[in-house]
């Protein structure tokens, strides 16, 4: 369980001749993330979503407030549980090394984690990778390809497989589907839903698209200007109090089709 209380973060911004004013990114962020949950954090660009994810991953320090995981302070927990906090980024093209084969990319977290003892682990690595490739529905031949040979959706699956190699407990999805086609988005979301059950994952799903969030998450938090405006159960977002959330809810362009009726027949 992750408890975040009154988290603060500001960046230096040099403005003026003398001035070293600070720009607040997160002013007061508090939320709880229970194990097995999927919390969606919704906010527009510049609201501090990505900063929050970097802080949780331990890539950046925070200025105030506290983060506790299983009752332990954040930095201690991270040290004791290496590889248990994983992430999938938005930009799949720049988050993989273009000179590496897919095998190297997926193996990297394992190499980092086990360091010198890698030799003995070779066989178990191989079976783990095979299992993960099957889970993300990609054939084994892809392991010897390079990132540019894969489509966006395939590469994002690779990124998901890479994030799962260390058997994480928490997975941050930082706009993980935003740069994909709508049809592929829905495939990836279905995959994520399956993986959550199979690997007992806890998701922190950062997005700006309310429809995708509603599909995957059971809790919702709305972030704006560095403050959590509201935290809701996912099927209660219509009773949101703040104006911003209501505006967001009404801004979604739903898609309607009479094709619904024949859907069940098609999939079976």
């Amino acid at each position: 369980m992750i408890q975040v209380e009154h988290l603060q973060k500001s960046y230096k911004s040099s403005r003026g001749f003398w001035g070293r004013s600070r720009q607040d990114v997160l002013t007061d962020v508090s939320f709880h993330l229970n194990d097995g949950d999927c919390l969606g954090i919704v906010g527009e660009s510049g609201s501090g979503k990505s900063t929050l994810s970097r802080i949780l991953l331990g890539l950046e320090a925070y200025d105030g407030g506290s983060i506790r995981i299983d009752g332990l302070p954040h930095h201690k927990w991270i040290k004791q549980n290496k590889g248990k906090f994983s992430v999938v980024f938005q930009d799949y093209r720049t988050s993989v090394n273009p000179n590496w084969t897919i095998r190297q990319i997926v193996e990297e977290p394992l190499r980092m984690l086990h360091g010198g003892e890698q030799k003995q682990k070779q066989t178990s690595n191989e079976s783990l990778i095979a299992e993960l490739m099957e889970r993300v529905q990609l054939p084994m031949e892809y392991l010897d390809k390079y990132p540019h040979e894969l489509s966006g959706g395939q590469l994002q699956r690779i990124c998901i497989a890479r994030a799962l190699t260390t058997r994480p407990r928490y997975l941050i999805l930082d706009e993980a589907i935003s740069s994909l086609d709508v049809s592929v988005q829905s495939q990836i979301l279905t995959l994520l839903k399956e993986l959550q059950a199979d690997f007992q994952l806890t998701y922190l799903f950062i997005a700006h698209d309310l429809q995708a969030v509603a599909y995957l998450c059971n809790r919702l938090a709305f972030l704006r200007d560095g403050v959590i405006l509201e935290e809701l159960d996912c099927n209660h977002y219509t009773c949101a109090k703040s104006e911003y959330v209501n505006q967001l809810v009404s801004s979604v362009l739903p898609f309607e089709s009479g094709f619904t009726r024949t859907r069940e027949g098609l999939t079976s």
Partner: protein
Amino acid sequence: MLLLSVNKLNIRDQKTGKTIVRDASFAVQANTCLGIVGESGSGKSMTVREILGVNPRWIQSDGEIWFEDRDILQDDEKQRRALRGRKISMILQDAMTAFNPIEKMGYQMRQTFVQVLKVTKKEAERLSLDSLRTMNFSDPVAVYKSYPHELSGGMLQRCMIAIALVLKPSLIIADEPTTALDSINQLEVVKQFQYLKELTGTTLILISHDLGVVQRLADHVIVMKDGEIVEDGTVANVFNEPQHPYTQYLVNTRLQLSDSYVKTLQAGGV
């Protein structure tokens, strides 16, 4: 009235020898909106770029593109250039990179109008501010005086529409105009397009992979897959009774995405 018709358009990449678009034929009636849907890599953008004539040199095409009673594929570069902006204009996906980052918005708008419409600077300024006002900006003067990085993606997208508005082209091509925006801005831009359609009766070609946006704006729709048009028809027909398996797949996946959302919305509304 038929504004644009494309007959058996083939587009090939000479570098790789691959055919990007095969036998594409479609027509756009004046004062309507045509939606083009399909996944990335299906040749949507290539097709409209060929209409505009801005594909790189190694992209070869044959077929016919009829616009204003002539086949514009036979035109030379000078004639094509005269069409761009004045008769056919394009609204790009990435508003952030479409503008020059080191010049103020006002300067860029003014410059376009002075060059294309041959008006004076003062007249151009008046035109820019007027069109910004119609684009629903609360403070057009502030927008006019700001640099692109000071504006949000949605605002820049609206600036781009404002420019297209003033040039009064007979055809506006919008290539994924809402993809890079968050949902509030997306709705804002979609509303702006609706307003544009009602107010000026512009003919619009809208490319998007989001069926929701297309459903809201378009009258007709064509579905592209791997460079071929697999289905076309009115929006209601194609989205309610998709015939081709690929269209069915697109509709299905999109429905899957909005289903749980719509359900909650309806449950909450009761």
